[in-house]
């Protein structure tokens, strides 16, 4: 627990001459939840793609420490190794569950896919794991053979989480996981995520524009604007004592319920 899981240094991505994100550096430790906040176009989604190895940086590095303690530079990894890592140690929860689920495969098949990719070849055990994870994400196990299209948005999002967590990844990237959900559904998902993150000791990089979500889930926060990080700190520090003008504007713009 006393070594970083992820080291990010000088991470930069240009789209032609336009800045996607510039010179981002930070470390993430096991069990830490880092929220990246900012408006759309602030570079947070670009950063998330760079961090999860789905986009190649123009400059800088993202290094991940694997289970054997070796540091792997994501941009320099072969495609085979990178994809293997993405299937085992990393997870991505997409904003739109359709991007993260196989919509024409049953819930159980969705949950089992990563395990089958790792060579699990026992149907009964795969099924057992599927039922177990249905329960852990508060889905009715009796619906294990239903397709995601028969699920509500909140259920699809929980299924997407189960599909990712089944291989017990160490680091999960979440892109606006609660946006597009009704408030009550959001609360349930947040509660679930809070529990899973704590009980599994997951490290999470969470992109959100919702500061309330960041406060509930995140330990640390990074505020982005125009592709650059303008403020970092503990989540409660950034929200209760924002220093940068842009952060103050963001925080003061929250509607008080």
């Amino acid at each position, binding site marked *: 627990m006393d070594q970083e899981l992820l080291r990010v240094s000088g991470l930069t991505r240009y789209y032609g001459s336009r800045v996607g994100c510039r010179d981002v550096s930070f470390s993430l*430790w096991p069990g*830490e939840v880092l929220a990246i906040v900012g408006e759309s176009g602030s570079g947070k989604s670009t950063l998330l793609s760079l961090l999860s190895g789905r986009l190649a940086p123009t400059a800088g590095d993202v290094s991940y420490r694997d289970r054997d303690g070796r540091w792997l530079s994501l941009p320099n990894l072969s495609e085979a190794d990178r994809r293997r890592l993405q299937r085992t140690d990393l997870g991505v929860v997409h904003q739109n569950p359709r991007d993260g689920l196989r919509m024409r495969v049953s819930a159980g098949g969705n949950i089992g896919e990563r395990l089958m990719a790792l060579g699990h070849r026992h149907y009964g055990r795969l099924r057992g794991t599927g039922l177990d994870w249905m329960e852990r994400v508060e889905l009715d196990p009796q619906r294990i053979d239903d397709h995601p299209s028969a699920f509500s948005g909140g259920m699809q999002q929980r299924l997407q989480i189960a599909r990712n967590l089944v291989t017990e990844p160490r680091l999960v990237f979440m892109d606006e996981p609660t946006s597009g959900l009704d408030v009550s559904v959001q*609360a*349930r998902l*947040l*509660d679930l995520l*809070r529990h899973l993150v*704590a009980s599994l000791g997951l490290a999470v990089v969470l992109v959100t524009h919702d500061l309330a979500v960041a*406060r*509930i889930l995140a*330990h*640390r926060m990074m505020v982005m604007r125009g592709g650059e990080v303008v403020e970092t*700190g*503990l989540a*409660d*520090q950034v929200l*209760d*004592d924002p*220093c*940068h*003008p842009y952060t*103050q*504007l963001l925080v*003061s713009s929250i509607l008080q319920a």
Partner: protein
Amino acid sequence: MNAPMISIRALAKTFTLHTQGGTRIRAFDGVDLDVAAGECVALHGPSGAGKSSLLRSIYANYRPSSGRVVVRHNGGSVDMTAAEPRAILDVRRKTLGYVSQFLRVIPRVSTLDLVAERLTAMGVEAGEAVARACGLLARLNIPERLWPLAPATFSGGEQQRVNIARGFVRDYPILLLDEPTASLDGENRRTVVNMILEAKGRGAAIVGIFHDDEVREAVADRCLHLTRPEEA
């Protein structure tokens, strides 16, 4: 003589309000304070003197403009104004309990879990954590029917007592208390006073804001007087 549990030197906090034309507001400055184990210091002064801001700065919820806050932690010391975020979280988890004025409610999380998670986060086994949380909620007169509910709909006094339970369910070596008895009736106030005295008795270092003179006199060993700083 043992080193103090909290050692504050030349601490100052100024807010710059960029959304209001860069207005600078000085919350407090030049604060020096040592608090020993088993000692309770009351922050005293008029409204706007920066009492809550100082408490929040000790907790590293606010980031002071200058000075330092050194707390004893894990047999060593940590400067809360300079430590890495994860070091601060570790201090908060193990050493520094903070009872804020208002409870921050998390949707769907029950009162009992809210209190018990302070223990499970420290590795206390779930059954024992729940048992201890129940004991404390009962002592603070939170009706048992409320325990499974999220405290969003509770009265101010009930929310405050849940907050107090969160601060006292663990034996934190340092406690920061922001008006813990403000909205409590006589009986509950006495309970909280007793809990503070018990905490002192086991050696907790306490810094608090106590609006109520009676409470302050009952628990505080001395006062730190804060005055409203001149405008910056």
